[in-house]
């Protein structure tokens, strides 16, 4: 009835895209908008 899930810290998607030289293109195609997460589910 008590359960612990260990979390590990990995590389973010942003960091990975940056390392592959893809971040700039990605952000052009997908303008980052933190507000999109909230109040957008339907």
């Amino acid at each position, binding site marked *: 009835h008590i359960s612990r899930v260990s979390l590990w810290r*990995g590389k973010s*998607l942003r960091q990975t895209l940056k390392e592959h030289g*893809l971040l700039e293109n990605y952000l052009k195609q997908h303008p980052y908008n*933190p507000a999109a997460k*909230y109040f957008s*589910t339907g």
Partner: protein
Amino acid sequence: SSTEPLQNYMDNEYFGTISIGTPGQQFTVMFDTGSSNLWVPSVYCSSRACSNHNLFNPSESSTFVGTNESVSIAYGTGSMTGVLGYDTVTVAGIEVTNQIFGLTETEPGDFFYYCPFDGILGLAFPSIASAGATPVFDNMMTEDLVAEDLFSVYLSKDGQSGSFVLFGAIDSSYTTNGITWIPLSAETYWQITMDSVYIGDEPVACTSGCQAIVDTGTSLLVVPNSILNSLLAALGSDSSGRISCSAVSMLPDVVYYLNGNAFPVPPSAYVIESEGDCMLGFEGMDVPTESGELWILGDVFIRQYYVVFNRANNMVGLSPLS
């Protein structure tokens, strides 16, 4: 159908493992208190983007029950689509039977190939669940699988080890500085009323009160756009958020007042150093609420406080980590 904006997860760094089906198929997921659905990629997805992830195979699970109901997970210009199904979800030994989840079928973009996690496990309230899907923790409570109707999150500061989500309990070794309880202002996200925000001893924002969401699925501290520039300027940064690394030790705390209590975030937490550059860990957004502005307390904040998400009395508990 329903949508979940995947682009918001591009900064997240904390991941855990769950399994779905019988026998269990393993997935790396992000535990997200800012959403309520569970979804993972599936063998129905044939695009390159899915080829770099674990894919759920319903035909290899004896407990899977499919549906014809569709789900859509949007990110920027496109969306992943999928179907909803039911199966046993195992989270660190807790077996949740008949858990509804999304199985992705199509992925129109390539970037998901690089996504460090397979799926997302939402820990917010059922009222914001897409397609009316019952969240995992609600089923844990309903099926009496947790000792108490709460879960807690610790994100280690060094980030390398020790971080966890604890279902059904509060780990007292992380609450030696006491827990301050804050009632929720809405049972949607883990949303609370914030009294004000100070930089050092000076009030800078939210002086008439505003709303804040405690969100493990957001990496930084999110502030209203109308405040971002003045906040960055007050901390000595230009509009890009860049700051001299040598100035970090002289910066003041950013202090969030919640339910009459101060919750400081020191510069060592809100300044993010990467490859020799220092950036302030704030980003702007505009989401007006009935009660004014909306702020997001993401991982930058959560690394400073052990957070208890209490569904038994709809409160958030915060315990300072020394």
